[in-house]
């Protein structure tokens, strides 16, 4: 789909022929994010519908204990040091950002009084600044007032390289200015198409200045508040054991009326996903379990008991297969999979197309992931009027056989195809994870029928995803022919996500394999489009650029998408827990309640 198609679709939304939700869903199906889609609509003048709150309780407290299970327990409670979502969630119980992303990609104000926009003057016309008005009357858990000083402090704290915060990416290039006690302005060095990054959502939780001031920079790890958070959130800190348990109790001075419902919260960690699902859906010991990455069959069985159900919310995660464009088996100047080489077998487009035809996404969806993995049609839907070339999603062993046969790959005596003495044998690696191993097996079987031999390799997750320079099994080294994993797109904006295919970021020995372009695929067109998108203020044009980038990468078969991975949680049937695919599970913890 191109820009014209996008504008036409937006026109349909304006005329009411396509609903807002349908539009957003289609954009997500095309590989964009809901926040970007919402931004497109806002830019085109389609007003944001006021979300009606589903919160029913009419008084604060009295709900008893809320027990939640995170099978990867939080190990620290300072949001600026959060390693992975588990720590963000632990912190989110106590800390809050200025705004959060709802499931439709709309910004919801939390500590902000309202969402900045061009209409209310919050967003500057030249895109170089955004002004946030803070909510008045908010207090920290220790009683001190929340003011603009805290917001400015967070910027100083996070942007200081000596603190080594993980949120630094969102704060180091901006400048934050205090306008008055409850107004701040964020300045961008150049027009920023995506301004809702600093102080928003997972990287925007605000920590109190008066407790952290003495611990900036290199002393950041010594702050006692690191272990005893004091925030503005619905629950106050009680106890914390890293990896095991976080406890909080009701904050009676919370800045919204009638909230929170529960008197206390307990977040237990450890164990595995299946037993977490059991604890919610079979024994009812817990009310909510995070990220139950379990085969859908097992989930369905448990749902039958009537105590709980699986809560599935669409996000942007996609399980991908990557094809190496370089040769991992030849060493050049001490480096394997160097860009100076070309993969002898995968350089042949026929082989890549054949592999694309051999991924049985339907079987993977039906028998492995179920509702938790929706087969993706190459990122590109086939909306009736807007076709893209060569992007049908198909599974056909016969076609693959044909393709290979005509390209000159003949079957040998062992059933494996070969050409010019080179056999079609690949090493296919992924991390240890039962559904992944099953997917590997399904693909291997299909490939065998087409005369391709796959050797399966499964690497421990902590090694696969590590950045250890000495280890040959990491996914960034890509010292094999094919690999598969889920690329997470929980960032609201695709810009950072799409830099995975930039020439300048090719992973190589020089940059210690820290480069994000793991497939080492290079394309001038892609690079041009990416740089253009970085500076494009019109979200519709930007979206069109992203879609073009998607097309390029997928047509070249640098990647083969397998299934979408929505987020799955296990929820007790009596619990009302609104979740969002674009933010933490706890993004609206204040609104959680239980039927009496």
């Amino acid at each position, binding site marked *: 789909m191109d820009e014209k198609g996008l504008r036409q679709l937006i026109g349909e939304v304006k005329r009411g022929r396509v609903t807002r939700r349908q539009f957003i869903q289609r954009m997500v199906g095309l590989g964009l994010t809901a926040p970007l889609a919402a931004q497109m609509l806002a830019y085109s003048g389609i007003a944001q519908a006021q979300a009606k709150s589903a919160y029913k309780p009419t008084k604060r407290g009295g709900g008893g204990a809320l027990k939640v299970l995170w099978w990867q327990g939080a190990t620290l409670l300072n949001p600026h040091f959060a390693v992975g979502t588990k720590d963000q969630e632990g912190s989110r119980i106590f800390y809050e950002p200025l705004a959060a992303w709802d499931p439709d990609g709309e910004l919801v104000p939390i500590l902000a009084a309202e969402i900045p926009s061009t209409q209310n003057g919050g967003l500057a016309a030249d895109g170089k600044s955004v002004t946030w008005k803070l909510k008045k009357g908010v207090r920290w858990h220790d009683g001190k007032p929340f003011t603009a000083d805290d917001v400015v402090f967070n910027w100083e704290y996070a942007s200081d390289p000596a603190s*080594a915060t993980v949120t630094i990416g969102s704060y180091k290039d901006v400048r934050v200015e205090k306008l008055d006690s409850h107004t701040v302005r964020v300045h961008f060095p150049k027009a920023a198409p995506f301004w809702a990054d600093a102080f928003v959502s997972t990287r925007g939780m605000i920590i109190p200045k008066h407790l952290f001031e003495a611990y900036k920079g290199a002393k950041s790890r010594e702050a006692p508040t690191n272990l005893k958070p004091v925030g503005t959130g619905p629950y106050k800190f009680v106890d914390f*054991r890293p990896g*095991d348990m976080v406890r909080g109790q009701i904050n009676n001075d919370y800045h919204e009326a009638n909230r929170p419902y529960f008197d206390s919260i307990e977040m237990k960690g*450890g164990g595995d996903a299946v*037993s977490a699902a059991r604890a919610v859906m079979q*024994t009812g010991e817990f009310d909510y379990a995070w990220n139950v990455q379990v085969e859908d069959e097992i989930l369905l069985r448990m749902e039958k008991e009537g105590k709980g159900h699986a809560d599935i919310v669409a996000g942007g995660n996609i399980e991908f297969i990557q094809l190496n464009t370089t040769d991992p088996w030849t060493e050049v100047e001490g480096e394997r999979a160097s860009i100076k080489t070309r993969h002898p077998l995968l350089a042949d487009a026929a082989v890549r197309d054949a592999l694309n035809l051999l991924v049985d996404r339907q079987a993977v969806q039906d028998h492995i992931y179920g509702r938790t993995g929706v087969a993706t049609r190459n990122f590109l839907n086939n909306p009736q009027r807007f076709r893209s070339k060569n992007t049908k999603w198909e599974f056909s062993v016969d076609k693959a056989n044909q393709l290979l046969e005509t390209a000159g790959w003949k079957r040998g005596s062992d059933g494996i195809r070969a050409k010019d003495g080179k056999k079609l044998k690949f090493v296919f690696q992924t991390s240890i994870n039962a559904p992944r191993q099953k997917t590997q097996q399904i693909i291997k079987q299909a490939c065998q029928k087409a005369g391709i031999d796959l050797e399966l390799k499964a690497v421990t997750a902590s090694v696969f995803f590590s950045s250890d320079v000495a280890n040959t099994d990491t996914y960034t080294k890509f010292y094999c022919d094919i690999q598969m994993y889920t690329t*997470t797109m929980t960032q609201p904006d695709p810009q*950072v996500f799409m830099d995975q295919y930039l020439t300048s970021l090719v992973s190589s020995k020089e*940059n210690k394999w*820290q480069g994000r372009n793991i497939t080492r695929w290079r394309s001038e067109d892609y690079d041009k489009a990416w740089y253009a998108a970085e500076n494009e203020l019109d979200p519709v044009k930007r979206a069109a650029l992203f879609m073009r980038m998607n097309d390029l990468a997928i047509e070249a078969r640098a990647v083969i998408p397998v299934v979408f991975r929505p987020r799955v949680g296990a929820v007790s049937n009596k619990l009302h827990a609104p979740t969002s695919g674009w933010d933490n599970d706890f993004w609206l913890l204040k609104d959680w309640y239980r039927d009496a």
Partner: protein
Amino acid sequence: MGRYVLRRLLIAIPSLIGISIVLFTVLALAPGDPFEELATNPNVPAEVRANLRAQFGLDDPVTVRYVRWFGSMMNGDWGFSFASRIDVDQLILQRLPVTLFVIGSSQILALLIALPIGVYAATRPYSLFDQIANTFAFIGFSLPTFFTGILFILVFSIQLDWLPFVYRTDIAATGWRWWWEHGKQALMPVAVLGLFQGASWTRYVRSAVLDVIRLDYVTTARSKGLREIAVVVKHVVRNALIPVVTLVALQMPAIFGGAIVTEQIFRVPGIGSLLISAILANDTPVIMAVTFVFSCLVILFNLLADLLYGWLDPRISYH
């Protein structure tokens, strides 16, 4: 004997140092990265990771890091966890009570099962009791703990709904009720571990008693007219205990860090699960601290076992 103990303790110090060097080197060389989760996060620029590594001294050569670690250990500073950013000794102390309670009880249970059953089965070899005991013992150690754990959960928690299966350290109750709740949730993990351990120990006890029960002095004791139970307890068991003492001594340190699978399944926040999550996260300070304590315990308990041999069998002498 006193001199022997003193000598052994003195030797223990350099051997501990030697062990710690080997441990440290293994950890330094093993693949894996404490900051791997940051690696997959596109928002964390590479400089931050590099900064963190420098902050924690990860880029220094192994020898420098070892000396630094050793020096701080001597000063009582057990290190700082990469993953949780708190002091390691705090982490360990938080988990110690639960570990001692759950894992310790399971070892006691194992002994309580193995000793009587093993001895009795050996006094009546190949009888019905012996066959049944043997069969249960075989079943017990042929099935891994992850399996029996899940079986127990399915039966007792899900089908019968008698016992909770997620272990919680903070039960809000007092007095009698607190003990009752703790007992209920500890029952399954203690049983799983205890039965597994007890199964193999039963076999050892039985074999050790069988070895001894045919010896002449037992026949003598019987022919002196002593009651069977006196014969068994006073003469047989004491001499058969040597292998049992060896095993128990070998197993004691495992209380501190060994029951990984059981802790995982029941979410018992013990030191075993701390160790495994530290290993998977490459949180070296925690791994070093736990394994160092572990090796101290190994040396200590093996020394105790050696001393006990001397008491059990006076003919064993030490120079």
